[in-house]
């Protein structure tokens, strides 16, 4: 069919003109609606030229499972009520951990269609009400409940199986995975919104101090890797993945304001344009062609790059879906930053660090910033928005005037992938 090869373009350009993020962490007294209001407040307080809330015409909110986490369905209208924006249409989008990535895509298309000029998109997840095994079960319900879950596969388990396949096929080892965690914690330590604002070194020092206080055997660590290789400090979750290979359980929310590009300068002199959007769908890992790659990520990135008219060499930085350390390595290969199997070496060589040639997850990523699953996709867009505007603070990328940033948001184990290309106005 001819439509398969159709060059896809937005009906009209769309810009991001505001961004807000709640604190990420564990907040026992807050519900998801409260977290969303916190993100919204952060956004409206930081709009460059102010903004009238009544201008919002439509909203999309990503949320994976308020139903199971909070026993609350139909959450979108509650958010609209809490923001005082009824009766505008608001729709909840559920695509597992890519929920807000997909919500953003819906918002972009709503403006590109010509239907609306000002659209609020965001995401939220309140996860810490449940104990860890309960969260594990809820997350596992994003996998195939008939054929993956009964086989005992959990989310860390599926990514553990991907890691094992990567180790078998390439020269990937356990230290490569842990080095992703070290880098992302180093970035998270510079992010005041992050759940973990500590380097791995700081965590090692705390463990030593705790042992001293309690009069226990005091461990000795010669390096951050040494600490992460201590099974007591960093226990196995799903071999070959340990605790520090996994993103945490997080409460949080995110939102951005999208507008038609022709009115963007009414809101800010520094809009960030949505240059390309891509979304693709994959099968369960056992039905995938490859065990070391997510086909949906490759397809989504090709769509987004083509729409933006860029190649991977134009990309200055990226926020990728590091729900597990191996997921970051696979993402950097699927997005074309590195050849298949070269991702681990790139980590070794510091190429993905803040001062590297391909900075990845300057926010700390899902690993250190936190992973309130429904909020993560828009959270990634917010980091790129700030970096492209030069607002990264201590964690601003070292390259001068970054122009193009990419986000990569995965739902489930690759069932959904959303990739966006964001570009600063020249």
């Amino acid at each position, binding site marked *: 069919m001819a439509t398969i090869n159709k060059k896809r373009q937005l009906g009209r350009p769309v810009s991001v003109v505001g961004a807000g993020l709640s604190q990420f962490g564990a907040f026992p007294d807050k519900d998801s609606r409260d977290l969303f209001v916190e993100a919204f407040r952060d956004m409206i307080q930081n709009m460059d030229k102010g903004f009238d809330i009544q201008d919002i015409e439509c909203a999309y909110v990503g949320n994976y499972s308020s139903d199971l986490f909070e026993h609350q369905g139909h959450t979108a209208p509650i958010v609209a009520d809490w923001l005082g924006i009824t009766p505008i249409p608001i729709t909840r989008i559920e695509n597992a951990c890519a929920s807000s990535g997909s919500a953003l895509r819906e918002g972009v298309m709503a403006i590109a269609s010509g239907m609306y000029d000002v659209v609020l998109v965001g995401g939220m997840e309140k996860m810490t009400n449940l104990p860890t*095994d309960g969260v594990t079960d809820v997350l596992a319900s994003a996998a195939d409940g008939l054929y993956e879950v009964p*086989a005992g596969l959990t989310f860390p*388990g599926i990514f553990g199986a991907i890691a094992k396949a990567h180790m078998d096929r390439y020269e990937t080892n356990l230290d490569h995975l842990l080095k992703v965690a070290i880098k992302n914690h180093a970035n998270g330590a510079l992010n005041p919104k992050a759940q973990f604002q500590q380097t791995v070194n700081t965590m090692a020092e705390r463990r030593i101090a705790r042992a001293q206080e309690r009069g226990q055997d005091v461990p000795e660590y010669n390096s951050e890797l040494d600490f992460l290789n201590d099974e007591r400090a960093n226990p196995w*979750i799903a*071999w070959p993945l340990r605790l520090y290979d996994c993103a945490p359980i997080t409460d949080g929310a995110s939102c951005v304001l999208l507008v038609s590009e022709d009115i963007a300068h009414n809101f800010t002199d520094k809009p960030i344009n949505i240059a390309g959007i891509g979304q693709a769908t994959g099968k369960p890992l056992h039905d995938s062609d490859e*065990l070391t790659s997510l086909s949906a990520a490759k397809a989504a990135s090709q769509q987004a790059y083509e729409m933006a008219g860029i190649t991977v060499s134009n990309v200055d930085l990226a926020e990728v879906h590091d729900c597990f350390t191996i997921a970051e390595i696979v993402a950097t290969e699927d997005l074309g930053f590195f050849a298949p199997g070269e991702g681990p070496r790139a980590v070794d060589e510091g190429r993905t660090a803040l001062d590297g040639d391909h900075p990845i997850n300057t926010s700390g990523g899902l690993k250190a910033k936190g992973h309130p699953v429904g909020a993560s996709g828009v959270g990634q867009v917010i980091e790129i928005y700030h970096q492209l505007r030069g607002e990264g603070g201590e964690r601003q990328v070292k390259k001068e005037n970054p122009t193009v940033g990419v986000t990569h948001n995965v739902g489930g184990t690759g069932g959904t992938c959303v990739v966006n290309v964001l570009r600063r106005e020249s």
Partner: protein
Amino acid sequence: MDNEFTSTAFYTKLKEDRQLVGVKCKDCGHLSPEPRPMCPQCHGFNMEWHQFSGKAKLSTFTCISIVPVTMAAKGYGRNNPYCTGIVTLEEGPQISAMINGVDGTNPQGIETGMDLVLDPDHLDEVTPSLAFKPA
């Protein structure tokens, strides 16, 4: 009887017949270990049951220490991790399965590529799992 190709039938055949029975598309020959009413390859609805040999090779695996509630009920946990992964059936398709008969506490001793056979023993009546064991 389109809807006979269901997961219920899959697990019933696993429990009662001790066989891995999936489906084959009569039009294009596509094999699927998971029964489904529609061929994902040619989009036809002309499926038939297909019994797999039960021979497989281990493609990749993980040993899980932080276990879901259902596996905790079976006695697995931090001190008793279980092995699960993806197997490639002799006939070609892959499927997720528990790997019994290996030491989950020693993943370095588990070899991908090893020969496996269907393990229909120890099937839990409430939450049955497809499982393989070393051949």
